[in-house]
């Protein structure tokens, strides 16, 4: 069993295709591992059914942990919210259907911050997820359940969503790979909307090759999503061994302050590693990036306030028992169904769109967004990639930031600009560092961003750097899934 769990998705898929490992055998091993979830990573797991069919494809027999934000026909889908408790959608998200078509299978639905609003997974109506490296700490969010499941050896790979960093930041805090593709490369149909112009689906995996494998299956134009285009030429497994001839831009504005010393050390070391692999380090200017958080916390809540208005107790989901007249029903249902962070953002977004404030907030934020996109266009004229730490700190303690929403928001400092620009960015584990307050070492993520739809180029560079860093090899014994005891 153990060795099956130690296989990467690419390795397992190859063995299954070669008939060395049976689909049922492999799936059973993972169901067993998932059943041992002590991290509260799963909200629902596939019940035992050893006799099933899977499509014949590149992911044949691969179990996938799917963030509970994706609609799965007949299976509970809550988006981490009380208001959707017990809800079973009448249809399945395109991303999940594509995985099925490639031969993969949903292993379970993972815990998340309610409606993907959060950076610590403490906003789930179903309890926080624990970081497999230190159960007293958060896994990051909002795809914290997916990240913890992969890092904690409860799933070989997972699906997440990223609106302002919700794939990259938890991947960083859990020491795995997280990829947010270009906006429009993967269909959003069936992915419960948080901020429609920013939401993007992506994989969380142990290594870059697995991320490429999943992206290849997920990407593509979908007639159900008017904003989807797919990635021209598709995606293949990366194989690049060095970084010679590639320029990596470090934005002065983003590397200035607010970074833990340990994180900064790992980041600097990684820059040296890039040079060792023949890559070039340059400074780039993203003068407007520092306004990313402000713009993001206007745009995302504004869209969310509209996207979450449909949860009204009329057609599905919960309805308050004490509903009197219509207004009562709306107000009590939503008051009881939504958690504090969701209410906060709905209020923020409603205010930003309300008459008299639109231009000052929403309109202005859209212009900042234009400026940030222009900044990146300018940067990419000079460099191939823009690199930053994924998160200013390693995993922080449970409850450490829950009383201070703003400091929580500032966690997305490095990831939000790429979301606003709609460009692809990947976080790979770059090393370990002790938390600012001291304590055992924890993973640090390194973020690489590329021009829109340059996913293949991004994956090639990330792969070469991954080999150079040797994180998965050297630190293997530190990783929870090593050494045979699935849950570290």
């Amino acid at each position, binding site marked *: 069993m153990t060795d099956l769990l130690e296989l990467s998705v690419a390795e397992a898929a190859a063995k299954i295709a070669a008939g060395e490992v049976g689909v049922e055998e492999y799936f059973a091993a993972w169901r067993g591992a998932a059943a041992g979830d002590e991290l509260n990573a799963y909200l629902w797991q596939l019940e035992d059914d050893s006799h099933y069919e899977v499509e014949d494809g590149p992911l044949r027999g691969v179990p996938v942990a799917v963030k509970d934000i994706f609609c799965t026909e007949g299976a509970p*889908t809550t988006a981490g919210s009380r208001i959707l408790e017990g809800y079973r*959608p009448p249809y399945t998200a395109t991303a999940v259907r594509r995985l099925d078509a490639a031969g993969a299978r949903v292993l379970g639905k993972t815990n998340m911050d309610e409606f993907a609003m959060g950076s610590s997974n403490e906003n789930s109506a179903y309890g926080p997820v624990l970081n497999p490296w230190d159960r007293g700490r958060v896994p990051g969010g909002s795809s914290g359940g997916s990240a913890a499941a992969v890092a904690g050896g409860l799933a070989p790979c997972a699906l997440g969503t990223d609106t302002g960093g919700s794939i990259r930041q938890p991947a960083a805090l859990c020491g795995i790979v997280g990829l947010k593709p270009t906006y429009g490369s993967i269909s959003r149909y069936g992915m419960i909307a948080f901020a429609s112009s920013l939401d993007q689906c992506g994989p969380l995996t142990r290594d870059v090759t697995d991320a490429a494998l999943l992206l290849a299956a997920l990407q593509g134009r979908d007639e*159900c*999503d*008017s904003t989807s285009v797919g990635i021209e030429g598709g995606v293949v497994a990366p194989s690049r061994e060095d970084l010679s001839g590639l320029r990596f831009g470090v934005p002065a504005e983003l590397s200035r302050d607010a970074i833990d010393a340990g994180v900064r050390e790992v980041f600097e070391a990684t820059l040296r590693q890039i040079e060792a692999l023949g890559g070039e380090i340059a400074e780039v200017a993203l003068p407007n990036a520092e306004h990313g958080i402000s713009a993001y916390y206007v745009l995302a809540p504004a869209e969310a306030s509209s996207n979450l208005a*449909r949860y009204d107790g009329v*057609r599905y989901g919960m309805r308050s028992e004490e509903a009197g007249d219509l207004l009562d029903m709306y107000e009590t249902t939503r008051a009881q169904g939504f958690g504090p962070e969701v209410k906060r953002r709905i209020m923020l977004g409603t205010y930003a769109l309300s008459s008299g404030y639109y231009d000052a907030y929403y309109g202005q934020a859209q212009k900042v967004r234009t400026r940030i996109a222009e900044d990146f266009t300018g940067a990419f004229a000079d460099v191939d990639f823009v690199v930053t730490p994924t998160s200013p700190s390693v995993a922080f303690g449970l409850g450490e930031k829950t009383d201070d929403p703003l400091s929580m928001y500032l966690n997305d400092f490095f990831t939000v600009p790429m979301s606003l620009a709609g460009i692809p960015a990947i976080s790979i584990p770059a090393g370990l560092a002790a938390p600012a307050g001291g304590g055992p070492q924890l993973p640090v993520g390194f973020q690489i961003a590329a021009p829109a739809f340059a996913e293949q180029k991004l994956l090639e560079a990330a792969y070469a750097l991954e080999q150079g860093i040797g994180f998965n090899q050297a630190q293997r014994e530190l990783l929870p899934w090593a050494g045979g005891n699935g849950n570290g």
Partner: protein
Amino acid sequence: MAEARELEAVIGLEIHVQLATKTKMFCGCELSFGDEPNVHTCPVCLAHPGVLPVVNEQAIQYALQIAAALGCEVAPRSIFHRKNYFYPDSPKAYQISQYDIPIAGAGKLGDVRIHRAHLEEDAAKMIHVGESGRIHGSGASLVDFNRGGTPLVEIVTEPDLRGAAEAAQWARLLRETVRQLGVSDVNMEEGSLRVDANVSVRPAGSEELGTKTELKNMNSFRFLQRGVEAEIERQVALVGAGGTVEQETLHFDPASGSLTSLRSKEEAHDYRYFPEPDLVAIVPTEQMLREAREALPELPAARIERYVGELGLAEDVAATLAADPETAAYFEQVDAVAEAIESRVVANWVTGELAAALRHSEEGVSAADSKVEPGTLAALMALVGEKTISHGSGKKVLAVLVAEGGDPAAIVEREGLAQMAGEDGELEAIVAAAIAADPEAAEQIRAGNGKAIGAIVGAVMRETKGRADGGEVNRLIKQQLG
């Protein structure tokens, strides 16, 4: 002071047109009317979590046709917005509509300017149950999402109308125009055409607009006229008495013909519009615009202008034909054959005598589908024109033609309807006999009582079965009574 001068009404209309596409605006559910509740729904039009809208190509094409028919400027690039409000008939709690950039801008129909026309989606149906069917009543409502998401074009006019009748008349023209485009059923009872009116009053000749009220739920042209009339009276009385008009929405109650004020669903109506991030811009291509133009038939306004201007038809006759393109086409065929006869006369026969004859026949068919070929009608009109038969006989022949078709001349022959000329002695003899049969009348005529002649003319017509020419008969009577 308002009292000092006479008050004039200022009226603008907002018309919602349900497009006759096969499917809804943003999903593949079929459009329907009168089916059982909630059998035409899907995750998209029920606004389940995670769904996305996709624009119906045909709805865009129909909107472009309406824009062309109303002579509107088409926006080179228009986008959709979200109009946010909570109500059970709006499953997403926002309506996808167009806001600052509608697909169609300024235009004109008849002498009313069009302000804009934009695309949006219809709301679901709510059936109010419980103590009272009225919207203000307590109890509950049942929501049926079959209609939810039906494509709508909302047409907004400038406030160019000045009277209730004028407003109703123009609304009829718009309805006829859209109907002939074939883009909607325009059935007011079924709600596929919905007309709201904005009404205000101001001192006659004044330029600025008074405070307007919005009238809703007038589901027939008659009700539209009555509703607007009632509201104008109310406002004139109010302002006349020194009061001021409150901006409000008024609900027309067909039963009582009265207007009741509706309280706003969402205080201050703060709709928090913002660009719909799930959709991309509509940029009509040359081909889309060409197809829209090419799909246009000759529309009523243009036809009326041509008939009156070029053919010299009376306004009302032209309007009657314009409202019925099929019969209008028939008229033009007859007019082409009958060169000798004025178009005005041809039009009168088609809309008058022929229409009447068709109404009385059991077939109940249109002129075009009737047994009366255009050439046949032309021949008949010629017989009457040359006084070969009397106008009355013409009608008799027409009745036969409608019933069994055939050749007018042959029917005149068969029925012996040929007009009696004065020359051969026959008519004189009949006249003489009639005079002899009614001495008193003859006496009065000699005494100069003109009226009395009617009795004798009547007797002659009875005798000749209407084959005699009235004028000729009068002449002969006067002649014989010297």
